[in-house]
């Protein structure tokens, strides 16, 4: 009787193990008789809807007949963490949209695109140690400072170029009963925009190689120049220039607040351009984050489409699909109009997309096309200047912490400790 029980249990275990076997993408070895299925990690936003993905995938899939593209929609907002959980489950996608490639390259998980193809099709490369893992189809400036022209006029303020002028404008606005800056600090990335602006302008503006030097251990966040830049964030807090209860206001609410004229300025990535209502097109202006001496520094971030996994069963098909998708101008249209993305395809100027865009968009785009000091946006770069591990979240948390502590140096020292932890495991 007991032997029959054990036999029954053993059979049940074998059935369960068979049911838990690895995914088809791992087991496919490209045998010519099998149809290939490639998994594609995507995500949803108000502009990148299910229909957008469905249409864009169908269009690009025509370049790879016989290949099926299966979407794996990220249920979270952290694509990199989701990709890593899939990796642990043996289900690393073949194609990964808008991830941070520097997090994977040391493990050889991604295959770079041919340099010749990148140079032939895109205005700027976005390389990691000389290789491009994501076609640099678009770019962002993170942050810019958007301002309400009517409120500025009411307070007698003018778009500043120096930090002193910026603080003077904030004081004028506050005296006029206007909230100077909308933050949306409940979402940590939004809370960190002023800190990103200050460190990008002051630290990277003085030394564009600062992040590489940080990797080499030659500089630290606790250095006096970095602490001085970070102190600007604390000053904005102590002078009460943010909206009331700024850390309770969500990013989504902050957009509504600023569009409704409840604050005069809004430091945010250039994706905000896609959220300016048409009724406010002529009332919203933009200026770069002010520097100490008024020099123009643009915190730039190249984005892109999809990376290709080095584990994909059919690399030629994966690259063909990726290249077709990346070069389709229709895909960029949604990103330009809805996400404020600046197109970076060679031979495809902005006008060629036939879109009606706000004056603020054209003003912002002029910073991309004109010759100026472009530096990597602190904590937003996806190339060699990407921050390691979880340091981006730690950076955002430091910005929130500056609302409740005056120990700016302590927060920067914590960032150095976080950097050490993140790089110790790589």
């Amino acid at each position: 009787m007991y032997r029959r029980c054990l036999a029954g249990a053993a059979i049940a275990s074998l059935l369960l193990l068979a049911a838990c076997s690895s995914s088809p993408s791992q087991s496919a070895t490209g045998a010519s008789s099998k149809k290939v299925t490639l998994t594609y990690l995507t995500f949803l936003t108000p502009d990148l809807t299910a229909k957008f993905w469905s249409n864009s995938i169908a269009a690009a899939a025509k370049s790879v007949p016989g290949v099926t593209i299966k979407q794996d929609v990220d249920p979270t907002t952290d694509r990199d963490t989701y990709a890593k959980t899939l990796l642990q489950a043996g289900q690393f996608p073949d194609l990964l949209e808008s991830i941070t490639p520097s997090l994977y390259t040391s493990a050889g998980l991604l295959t770079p695109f041919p340099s010749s193809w990148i140079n032939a099709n895109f205005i700027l490369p976005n390389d990691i140690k000389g290789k491009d893992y994501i076609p640099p189809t678009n770019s962002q400036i993170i942050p810019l400072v958007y301002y309400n022209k009517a409120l500025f006029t009411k307070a007698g303020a003018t778009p500043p170029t120096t930090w002193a002028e910026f603080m003077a404008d904030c004081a004028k606005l506050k005296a006029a009963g206007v909230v100077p800056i909308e933050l949306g600090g409940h979402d940590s990335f939004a809370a960190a925009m002023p800190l990103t602006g200050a460190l990008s302008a002051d630290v990277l503006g003085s030394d564009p190689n600062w992040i590489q030097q940080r990797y080499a251990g030659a500089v630290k966040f606790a250095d006096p120049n970095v602490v001085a830049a970070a102190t600007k964030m604390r000053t904005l807090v102590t002078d009460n220039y943010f909206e009331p209860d700024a850390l309770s206001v969500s990013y989504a609410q902050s957009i509504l607040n600023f569009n409704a004229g409840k604050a005069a300025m809004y430091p945010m990535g250039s994706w905000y351009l896609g959220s300016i209502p048409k009724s406010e097109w002529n009332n919203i202006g933009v200026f770069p984050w002010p520097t100490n001496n008024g020099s123009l520094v643009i915190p730039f971030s190249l984005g892109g489409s999809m990376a290709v996994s080095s584990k994909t069963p059919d690399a030629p098909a994966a690259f063909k699909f990726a290249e077709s998708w990346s070069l389709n101008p229709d895909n960029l249209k949604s990103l330009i109009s809805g996400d404020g993305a600046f197109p970076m395809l060679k031979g495809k100027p902005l006008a060629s997309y036939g879109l009606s865009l706000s004056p603020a968009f054209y003003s912002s785009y002029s910073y991309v096309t004109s010759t100026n000091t472009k530096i990597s946006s602190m904590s937003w770069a996806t190339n060699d200047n990407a921050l390691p591990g979880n340091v981006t979240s730690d950076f955002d948390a430091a910005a929130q912490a500056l609302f409740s502590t005056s120990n700016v140096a302590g927060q920067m020292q914590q960032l150095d400790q976080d950097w050490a932890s993140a790089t110790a495991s790589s």
Partner: protein
Amino acid sequence: MKPLRIRLARLDTGLGAVAALALVLYLMFLIVPVLLSLKTSFTNQNILFPTSSFVGLANYRAALRDTQLRSSIEFTLALAVAVTIVANAAGLCFAVLLNRTSLSYRVLRTLAFLPQVISGIIAGFVWSWMLSPTGLVNHILTATGLVSQPVNWLGTPQLAQLSAGLVVSWVLSGFTAVVYLAALQNIPRELYEASSIDGASSRQQFRMITFRMVAPATTISVVICLITVLKLYDIITALTGGGPAFATRSIAMYIISVGFSNDAYGYASAIAMVLLVLTAIVALSVTTVLRRREVDL
């Protein structure tokens, strides 16, 4: 008709197979993963690399020096104690109030259990909106004149921690209410009748009969509340994201951050083992103390 011995033998065979299957599932989905995690905790496993090296107790020594882990443990333990007390007190109150047989009370019981039915993510998102400066809670507080300005429920570390405690207590009070309700309905009515005859007041009846007779339910409810909060992830993620400035980051959130953002899978496994041991110690200690109370009765 078959002899009784044969019928019982056939019943034993069936039950044995089901028990064996349950044991296999338990081994496969609980014991084996825990043992694999324990093994990983002694390595420098990086989530992106297939191989790793044995590092002994290095991860555990690092955990002792980790100030961020210490902050997460302090917050999680404080939350566990506070939520357990509040959720059990509220659950017992609801149960006493709802311990009636009419239809309206049965409907109210269903509503009392509603927080437990909603997923943690949904509960977190809904309360995140309700506690925002323009949310329902601040709207009621300002409209009734209780406060002159909206309260910054999620914007300061202290208030965010308080808000997290209140939301998690609300979610768990549905569970505790049901547990206590079931226990209340098993208390013999004769005890209350006899005590009434002896002149006992309502308060005395609650203290000497109700509170003592629900002791087994208290044990279950307290232990499950503690375990639930010690491994809390979903509600906090949706409500505060662990902010502001990681003030509400639970141990589970920190494990995910270490394992999947810093790629330190070995170290994350070590922290997970620490959480397992902590949970086991807390659960066993509390169970021992509370079961002693049951025996005393």
